[in-house]
């Protein structure tokens, strides 16, 4: 019997638009065949979020657009434009 496992790709984009450029990325591999980790590459896997879609990744979560907290409009914190993608692959 064929089972599937989830591979997850997280892309951080330049703006809230899915076709804007990738500024950060992370991978997690439920197949156990790879162990991506912090600081393991300098070049992103795709130039834009749409590039991931074109390669078969399915988008399943995107950051909402949240207004700044009153009084903290100029504070910077986490990256704002986070997109989660998945592939289901046979194992």
């Amino acid at each position: 019997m064929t089972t599937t496992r989830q591979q997850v790709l997280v892309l951080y984009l330049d703006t809230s638009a899915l076709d804007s450029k990738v500024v950060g990325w992370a991978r997690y591999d439920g197949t156990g065949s790879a162990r991506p980790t912090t600081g393991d590459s300098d070049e992103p896997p795709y130039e834009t979020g749409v590039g991931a879609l074109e390669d078969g990744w399915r988008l399943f979560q995107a950051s909402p657009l949240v207004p700044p907290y009153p009084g903290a409009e100029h504070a910077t914190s986490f990256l704002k434009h986070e997109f989660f993608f998945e592939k289901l692959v046979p194992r």
Partner: protein
Amino acid sequence: MENYQWLPITPHDSPPLRFYGCFMPTTKQLLSSAEVARFTAHGFLRLDGVVPGELNEEALGAFAAGGLPAVPYGTPVPAAFPEGSLTRRLLELPSLAGALDSLVGPDPAVDHHFVHTRLPHEGSAQPLHADALIDVRADAFDVQLMYYPQEVTASMGGTLVVPGSHLRRTNESDTGRYQNLRGQTRLTCPAGTVLLLHHGIWHGGRRNDSDTVRHMYKIRFNPTVPQVRLWDTRDVDSPAVREELRRTFPWYEQATARLEIHNRILLWRSLTADPGFDIDHWATRITNRPAAHAAPRSTA
């Protein structure tokens, strides 16, 4: 794209590194305003190969033998590191002494120090993090010194540092989800290299895929004086200062990059005691409130 891996900072007004082995300046070499502006933008300075070879050898031996004894939090440098000790001699190198004086000021307290060791093929990296607690002081910052006594090659898992991340308000390893960011620095360096970092910088020890043990010695310093104009300020009005402060980094989102520059302006105002300093009108524009300063109009 600029290669942030190779932006060594050299001490102001001093022919640097090649002097070791034949001549050692004995006076502190303060940073220039442009260099402090670069620290303000990047969140760190890098001094390549500033520690002489014999001290590197001695340090490697001490680190391999189990590190250095702990120091109580807040101990003054002379009490923490007696005259002649390895750490004291390291801190007395003119380029390091001058850079530390320029950033954290004279007579800082030692917060803590520790030798970090990454074993060969250990299999994991640290999550991206900032040290200690979320720390949003607007008029003070701690400086962390990272010293690499041996050459660090790409496979040895040199420290990951994210330029320009130090003013982000995040707590410790909550950034662990971010594996890679454009423009990150995966440190490779010659022996005797030192980084001086703002306390808020995002960083992490990378996975050591080599056959070599890698050591990094970190000391955190707390300021004991106001961090205002502590460096060589002769070039404070130089265009190079603004060039450094308006620098953006490849991982910044388009909109947030503007906020980063705004926040650097505020930090530079604090560092220079110049409340009117601005770049491209960013801070002035959004604080211009004529009505708040106008005399009340008569309604008669």
